[in-house]
C-alpha cells in the first residue's frame, strides 16, 4: 500500500507538472490583462492539431518546436482583433467573449479535422518504460516533465532577466504607471497574451502524445488549471506551479482509495484552501 501511494505521489507530480504548464499560461494572461481566458483549452487543442498536421512534413520534433509558436501567433491575432477591445470594461465582457471563443474553437477543430479522434504518433523510443518497477515512468512522460521544467524555467528567466519580463511584472503591479512611464501597454499585453497561449500550445502538443487527439482534448484540462490558480493564489506564478502539482498529487493519491472521487478531490482541496487561506497558498493579501 505504501508503495502504491508513493507511486501515485510520483505520478501525481508528473500530471501536476502538466496542469501547472497550462495554468501558468492562464495565470500570465489573467495577471496582466485581467482576462479569464475560457478559450485556453481551445488553444491547447489548436496546438495539438497543428502538431498533428505538421508531423508528416517536419516530424515530431519539428512540430514540437513550430506548433506552439503558431498557436501563440493565432493567440496574438485573437488578442489584437477581439480581446483588446474589451480591456478596461467589466471582466464579464472578456469572460463571455472567451467563453464563446471556446465553443468556436471546438467546433472549428471539429469542422477542419473531424469529430473522430486522430492517431497521434510519438517517436518509438519515447514510448518505452524506463524500468519494470516504475513502469509508469515512460520515456515520453519523463521527457514531458523535463520539457515542462525547461518551459517553466524559461518563463521565469524571461520574467526576471529580460526587459519584456520586467515590464510584464511591473504591469501586473501597476499598469497605469507603466503606461505613464512610456511603455507601450498595448504591445505588452499583446506579447504577454501570446506568451500565455504559447504555454497552452506547448501543453497541447504534449497532451496529444498522452491522450486521444479530439476536439474536446482541452475540456478536461481547463478545470484543473483554474483550480491550480485559485489554490496557488491569484497573481502568483510560483503559486500556480505549486497549485498544479498539488492537484496532481491529490488526484493520484485519491485514486488509491476512492477512484470515483479523483476528479472531485481538487474541488475539495480548493474549498479547504479558500476556507483556511482565502488568498491562496502563495497569493498576496489584498492583491486580488
Amino acid at each position: 500500500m505504501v508503495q502504491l501511494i508513493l507511486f501515485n505521489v510520483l505520478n501525481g507530480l508528473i500530471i501536476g507538472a502538466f496542469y501547472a504548464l497550462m495554468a501558468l499560461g492562464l495565470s500570465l494572461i489573467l495577471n496582466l490583462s485581467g482576462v479569464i481566458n475560457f478559450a485556453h483549452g481551445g488553444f491547447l487543442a489548436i496546438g495539438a492539431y497543428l502538431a498533428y498536421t505538421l508531423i508528416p512534413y517536419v516530424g515530431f520534433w519539428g512540430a514540437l518546436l513550430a506548433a506552439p509558436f503558431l498557436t501563440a501567433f493565432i493567440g496574438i491575432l485573437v488578442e489584437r482583433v477581439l480581446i483588446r477591445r474589451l480591456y478596461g470594461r467589466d471582466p464579464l465582457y472578456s469572460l463571455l467573449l472567451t467563453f464563446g471563443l471556446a465553443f468556436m474553437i471546438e467546433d472549428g477543430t471539429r469542422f477542419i479535422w473531424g469529430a473522430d479522434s486522430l492517431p497521434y504518433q510519438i517517436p518509438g523510443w519515447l514510448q518505452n518504460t524506463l524500468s519494470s518497477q516504475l513502469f509508469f515512468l515512460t520515456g515520453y512522460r519523463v521527457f514531458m516533465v523535463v520539457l515542462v521544467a525547461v518551459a517553466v524555467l524559461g518563463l521565469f528567466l524571461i520574467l526576471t532577466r529580460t526587459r519584456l519580463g520586467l515590464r510584464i511584472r511591473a504591469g501586473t503591479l501597476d499598469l497605469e504607471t507603466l503606461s505613464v512611464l512610456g511603455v507601450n501597454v498595448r504591445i505588452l499585453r499583446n506579447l504577454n497574451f501570446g506568451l500565455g497561449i504559447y504555454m497552452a500550445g506547448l501543453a497541447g502538443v504534449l497532451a496529444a502524445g498522452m491522450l486521444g487527439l479530439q476536439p474536446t482534448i482541452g475540456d478536461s484540462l481547463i478545470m484543473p488549471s483554474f483550480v491550480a490558480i485559485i489554490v496557488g493564489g491569484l497573481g502568483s506564478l510560483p503559486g500556480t506551479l505549486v497549485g498544479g502539482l498539488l492537484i496532481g498529487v491529490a488526484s493520484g493519491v485519491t485514486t488509491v482509495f476512492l477512484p470515483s472521487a479523483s476528479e472531485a478531490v481538487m474541488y475539495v482541496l480548493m474549498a479547504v484552501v479558500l476556507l483556511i487561506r482565502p488568498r491562496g497558498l502563495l497569493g498576496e493579501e489584498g492583491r486580488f
Partner: protein
Amino acid sequence: MPSGNPNSRLGIGRRTVIKAAAAAGVFQVAAPFVQTARAADNVKIGLDNPLTGTFAALGKNELIGAKLAVEQINAKGGILGRKVELLVEDSTSGDAATAVQKANKLIERDKVNFLLGNINSALAQAMANVSYEKGVFHIVPGGHTDSVTGSECHWNVFRVCNTTRMETNSVSQLLLTSYGKKWYFITTDYAFGHSLQEGFEASLKAANGTEVGHDFTPLGTSDFSANLIKAQAAKPDALILLLAGDDMINCLKQAVQFGMDKKTHIAGAQQELEVLDGLPAEALVGDWVFEWYWKQSNVPHVAQFVADVRKRSGGKVPTARTWFGYASVWSCQLAAERAKSLVPVKMAKAMQGMVLPPEVALMPNNPFYRKGDNQLMPTLFVGHAQKPPTGGDPEDLFKVTEEVKGMDAALPVDQTGCKMTWPT
C-alpha cells in the same frame, strides 16, 4: 461595474475567478441548437443524440446512418406515402437535463412521430421515461444499459444496439478460458459502465473467478495513469476496460505506453471502430465485441451499404454506430408500414417479433425485435483489435473470430426484469 475586491486593479476578485471556474463546468455541458426546416405534413423523426463532447464522433456516425436511411426511404415513397424528415438535436454527451429538454422540444413543439436517441445510456433511459410519459414511439439506437429493455422497459421503447449483458456474455467465455480468472475492472462511472461490470461479475462468479479490484472513473476522464498503477499492483490476469468513446482511447493509449499489454491481457466488452481509428498502431490491442462490422463478405447488401456510406463520410467505412442510426430509422418505416398507421401503440404491437429484412439487417442470423422486452436480437462479432493488414484497407482494424447469436447472449425475457404494461 467591476466586481470583486476594491483593491484589485483589474477589477477581478477571487470570487470572479471562482465563478468563472464554475461557469467552465457549465461550458462542458452547454450545447448548440440544431434544427432543420420542416413541412407540416411530413413524417417527422427526431434524433436527440450527442453532437458535441466525448460521444460526438459516435453521434456523428449515427447521424450519417440515419440520414442515409431517410434518403433511401424517401426515394422509395416515404412512410405511408408521406415524405420523411429528420430533425436533429444535440443532447450533449452527458447532461441528462439537456437531453430531456431537447426530447420534450421534439415531442411538444416539433410533434415528431418517432423519437430516436441516445448514445449515453443514462440519457437514453431519461429520454425513454419522457417518451413513455408522452406515449411517443421511441427507438434507442445506441444506449446499452440493461434497464432500457430490462427493469425500466416500456411498451413504446425499442432498442437496436445490444444490452450490456449480451455484450459481456458473448465475450466472457473467451476471456475466462484463454486468459485466466483474475480480473481488474476500470469502468466508466455511469449506467453503461456499471451494468457492463455487473454482467462480467456475474460471468466471473459463475466461473469461480476473482475480481481483484475495480475503479470507477468519471466520464470524460483524460488521465488514467493512477488507475493503471493501481491495476498493475493487483496483478490481474486480465485488465477489463469498460469505457467508451474518448475515455477508452485515453486509457488504452496510456495502458500500452505503460507496457501493460505485455504484462496482462487487455480486454473488455464493447469496442468501436471510432475508438480503434483514433489509436496509434501500437495501441491496437485486446479482445472485444463489435456490434456490427463492415467486413462481411458473404452477407448480402453490406458491400452496397459500405459504398453508400463511404460516399457520405469522406471515404470512411460505416461503423456499428452508422448501422445503428440506419437500422433505427428503417425500423420506424417498417413499424409504420407494418401497422399501416402512425399510432404509436399500433406500431409498437407491429414491431413485436419483427424480423429486419436483409437490406436493413446487414448481418447474419435474421435479427429481430424480441417480443416481451422490445430488444433487437442481432449478431455480435467477437474478436480482437489488429493493425491494418499489409496492403489491406487501413480501416480493417478488427479481426472477427466468432459470431454470436443475440439470443444465445441475451438473458431470457423473464430474467431481464422487464414487466411491460401496455395501454388499454
